[in-house]
């Protein structure tokens, strides 16, 4: 563990990297193309000047050396899961195996074109078919669409299907119920699908009471969108009864599968009465987060919703060949051009095969063990606003630190001085000053101990030297930013 004094003096900073535009010098080049080998026509005869530009003013002129130096230096300003624990709650920052990267780069996949004839891409179609079979088994649901390219995109897909199913039976209804602990994407997606939102209050365990739900499910309610386990990491033990209440009123149960990592291979959404679930493959199935995407958000549905799946679906013929099927008259339509984020799907299936049934179950077991270990080690030092047993993540608050005027943001920034990425902060909204910690199954005990030691050290610093915590971070490439200025006087691009 780094001593306080060391972190305090380690404020020497190298100068940050200039913008690529500031490295530009006339005459430099970073590319070479083969010389034009067809007879050159006057440009005016191919494209009239009015439709043309003859210069891209202020575009860069840099060499390959400049580019490699620039991006290598930029990369060093980031922390990453490969460098250590990255405990962002709800984000499932787990190890990203490199075989997945290698497989995705296989030329037969990488160079295949999305509008090729079916017989030319049997390998791809078969891969998609196998991925759907695997997700069907993981979800315990009869069909899965692979088209959505992110969790929120999956949410929109699922709610559009519910809308269409209800509309077909005569009344699309008006409301989606969403607990106050939900991710912000849930209400945003529901609104985009044409619904109004009704928020459900959580109880003292952070879960939803059956009586609250029962009172809220009117004839106007289309669905409940709920995260299982919820954003506190607490499993909704009455999930089946919830499904029954909704189904009795002709409404649907949507599960935000962001937290699937906590129960994959242990229990299945379909067996809980869930009608729709999306899975963020970049979370549970380890496709790299890439600084904010690309991801993928396949959606599994119950029998009643199968006719409304996006087109195309991928099907297998009796002769063992595969095809894209557009013959679904009740489909909500296409959610995106082509076949979704195919090469993210390749990575996810690689991971599923590498894990197998025993490995997937072990993911949930060790993710839950690791989170509960952190909870046990830190609960004396940080306030636990909800003490219900939690699964893969644990949410603390800053209640014990605020008397010293040290807040969640300060704790997060101070963790950076100890070499850790902070947890998710100020979420879920039902916890004031939330610190939401999700270690995932990847982390070895010694890394968890180092993190807990750092958190405990910060708790001590808060009592003894609160100013040190309030002014953190001290060792990062830049220190706290003036975020208000960025929003008040937005500078959103470089100008010469």
């Amino acid at each position: 563990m780094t001593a306080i004094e060391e972190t305090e003096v380690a404020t020497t900073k190298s100068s940050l990297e200039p913008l690529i535009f500031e490295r530009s010098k006339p005459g430099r080049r970073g590319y070479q193309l083969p010389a034009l080998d067809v007879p050159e026509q006057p440009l005016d005869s191919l494209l009239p000047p009015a439709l043309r530009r003859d210069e891209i003013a202020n575009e860069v002129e840099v060499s390959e050396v400049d580019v490699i130096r620039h991006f290598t230096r930029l990369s060093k300003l980031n922390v990453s899961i490969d460098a250590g624990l990255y405990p962002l709650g709800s984000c499932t920052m787990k190890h990203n195996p490199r075989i997945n990267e290698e497989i995705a780069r296989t030329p037969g996949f990488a160079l295949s074109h999305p509008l090729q004839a079916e017989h030319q891409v049997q390998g791809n179609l078969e891969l998609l078919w196998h991925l759907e079979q695997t997700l069907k088994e993981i979800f315990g649901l009869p069909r899965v669409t692979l088209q959505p390219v992110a969790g929120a995109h999956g949410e929109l897909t699922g709610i559009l299907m519910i809308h269409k199913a209800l509309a077909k039976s005569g009344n699309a209804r008006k409301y989606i119920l969403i607990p106050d602990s939900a991710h912000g994407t849930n209400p945003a997606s529901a609104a985009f699908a044409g619904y109004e939102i009704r928020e459900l209050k959580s109880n003292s365990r952070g879960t939803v009471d059956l009586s609250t739900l029962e009172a809220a499910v009117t004839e106007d309610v289309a669905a409940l969108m709920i995260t299982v386990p919820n954003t506190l990491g607490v499993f909704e033990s009455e999930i089946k009864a919830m499904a029954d209440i909704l189904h009795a009123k002709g409404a649907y149960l949507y599960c935000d599968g962001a937290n699937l990592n906590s129960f994959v291979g242990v229990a299945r959404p379909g067996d809980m009465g869930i009608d729709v679930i999306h899975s963020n493959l970049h979370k549970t199935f380890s496709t790299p987060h890439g600084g904010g995407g690309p991801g993928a958000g396949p959606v599994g549905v119950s029998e009643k919703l199968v006719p409304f799946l996006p087109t195309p679906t991928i099907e297998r013929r009796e002769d063992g060949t595969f095809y894209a099927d557009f013959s679904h008259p009740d489909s909500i339509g296409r959610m995106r051009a082509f076949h979704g984020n195919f090469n993210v799907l390749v990575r996810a299936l690689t991971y599923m095969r590498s894990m197998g049934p025993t490995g997937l179950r072990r993911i949930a077991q060790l993710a839950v063990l690791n989170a509960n270990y952190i909870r046990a080690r830190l609960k004396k030092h940080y306030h636990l606003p909800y003490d219900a047993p939690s699964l893969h993540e644990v949410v603390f608050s800053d209640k014990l630190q605020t008397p010293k005027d040290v807040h969640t943001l300060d704790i997060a920034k101070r963790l950076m001085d100890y070499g850790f990425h902070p947890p998710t902060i100020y979420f879920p909204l039902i916890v004031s000053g939330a610190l939401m910690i999700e270690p995932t199954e990847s982390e070895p005990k010694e890394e968890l101990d180092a993190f807990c030691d750092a958190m405990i050290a910060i708790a001590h610093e808060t009592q003894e030297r609160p100013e040190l915590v309030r002014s953190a971070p001290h060792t990062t490439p830049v220190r706290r930013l003036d975020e208000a200025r960025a929003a008040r006087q937005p500078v959103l691009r470089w100008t010469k």
Partner: protein
Amino acid sequence: MTLPDPTASSSSHRYISNAGEDIREMLEVIGVDSIDRLFDTIPNDVKLKGLLDIPGPWSEIETRRWFRGLAARNITATDHVSFLGGGAYSHYQPACIDQLLLRAEFLTAYTPYQPEVSQGTLQSIFEYQTHQCLLTGLDVANASLYDGSTALCEAVLLAERLVKGKKKVVLAKSIHPHYLETVHTYVQNLGLEIVEVGWGADGRIDLEALRAATTDAFAVAIQSPNFFGVIEDYDAVAQAAGTLTKISVIAEATSLGVLAPPGQHGFDICVGEGQAWGIPPQFGGPYVGFMVVRDALKRHMPGRLVGETVDVDGKRAYVLTLATREQHIRRGKATSNICTNQALIALAANMYLSLMGKAGLREVGTQCLQKTAYLREKLRAIANVELPFDGPVYNELVVRTPFDAKLILADLEHEKILGGIPLGEFYEGQERDFLVAVTELHTREHLDHYAGALSAAISRERR
């Protein structure tokens, strides 16, 4: 079925560090006697009694064998010469880009919520935003959207927010058909009316019909080059669209290297697909959608925006900003539901645009123009080949023969040519048409071979 004991050494997996003794020690600290006890809140009646019925766990050896076997069943540009475009193009990919993308600091980081430890990602997005502005002639770009099709959806929804009480949007029928379908899906419950306007003899949007369709509409969207490869006349379209919000869709991003920027020709929003900037076709994704708008529209933008600021020491730094537009703050009233976007592909695009730079982007553009013009002349000389649209093209054109396009393309496949995209799948009555794309990757020999093979295919069909 007995489930495996998680503390047994036979249960270990290479991606999960903790095993045996560590697990026992941790359980002791937690104060429970088994991992199963940690799952007590999941009722027994929903717990699986056995293991999932799926293959694995596989070693890397088995994984490689199976996946390479699947990849080998595809027929692709690895051993054929591809002339496929239609929204996914094969361009030169500088070798250093993929090497740099594999740097773990980029690959395995999350959305840059904590700017002090994410300046690499943030600064790169700021640079990416700048490239988009320079290329489109507009003022503010976001950090990325999923792809071209969903970017168009977001643009339509943005334009709708600007105008109260109008519900009609006019879309060119020559926009990529998948993009049009996606818009129909997105807005199906939002009470919008979509009017599609067709094309004239030159393949460009029918301006008369466009003018007529604008009554009571809030926006017009066209694609240029359009799905047939034909370059639209922005000024004429802008004039016909009058005061409506004008959206330009770019499905072939390298065209911005030589085509007039939409922002300087009356357009308010430019959205598109960045795949052509050196991203492999990879069966349709991941790609990167972009959106660039006039300054006045910036607070209506969907998605992440990175802005410049300073830290407490006055040092320049970058941060996610104007977040009050977004779902994590505004929830049901956000400008979009988007959260995860396509940051790594936007990073690849930033690298491509920087490497190619001012001269390279232009040279890619002019090579595409020249080589396409060369092939166009070659094809025009073949008996029974018709080029139905005579408008200017960038790197793609429609070819018509007297025969079903699928027959002709199957013939070309025998010559190891992926010869085009049959248009009958998208437009009724165009069963004899196919779309052919040419890029800087094609040599004169490729183009000559293509013309020869097409001529031979037509002769064969005539017999």
